[in-house]
């Protein structure tokens, strides 16, 4: 019997994979992909609870999360392109223009 807890465990594990990617990788494009993984983990949680409560509102919120992810990807990748044009790098260790 697969309960909502199973889905929550899967979602938590996927979210932590995203956190590890954000905190340990140095290529900013891969950091962005890890953020997408985290957003997907949140979506799994929302859909699992929507299934548990038999209520479609959780899926509506997932649609909003996907909208935010699309907006974030578009703007973020625009920033990466603009930054790459100026500094010729996508390494987050070299992105220190705003560091004190």
């Amino acid at each position: 019997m697969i309960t909502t807890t199973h889905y929550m465990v899967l979602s938590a594990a996927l979210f932590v994979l995203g956190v590890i990617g954000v905190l340990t990788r140095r290529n900013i494009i891969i950091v962005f992909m890890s953020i997408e993984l985290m957003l997907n983990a949140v979506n799994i949680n929302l859909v699992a609870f929507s299934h548990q409560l038999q209520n479609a509102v959780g899926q509506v919120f997932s649609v909003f999360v996907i909208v935010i992810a699309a907006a974030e990807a578009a703007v973020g990748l625009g920033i990466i392109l603009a930054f790459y044009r100026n500094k010729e790098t996508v390494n987050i260790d070299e992105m220190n223009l705003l560091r004190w």
Partner: protein
Amino acid sequence: MAEAAAFYILAALILGFGVLVITAKSAVHCILFLVADFLCVAALYVSLQAQFLAVIQVLVYAGGIMVLYLFVVMLVNLKRPPEAHSDPRRLGFLGLLMSVAVLVELALIVVTRWARPAAAGSGLSPDNVRQIGRALYTDYLIPFELASFLLLVAMVGAIILAKREL
């Protein structure tokens, strides 16, 4: 029984591809693994009676967003790999430790048993699209319009950021 088998296979695939995404050397490989991961998540949505969301996942994520990522990876041709230069003050081990702390916190939340077994009533009907559309255009009309406006702003912002000169 079949449901449990499907869940465990999909969960293993999702986590396996997730690990590959954050460990693969080349960014293009990462993107391909991420597409596979998203397709598995879409299959999981189907098993959770969220067919509309599964279609959206394939169309928007695996189809749209990932092509955007691929474009950027192809545009940014790297003469030296980004992993070559590393900040000496960087504490990668600390990052891993913090992620484990997040895992422990999430596990604590999970084991406190907020989750109940599925309700007997079937509020999720097979015509999933109609339900979601009704909710979006009645109760969530203002968030829906705000989301569309956010997408417009993001589109304009992305064009302005990526343009060479205005």
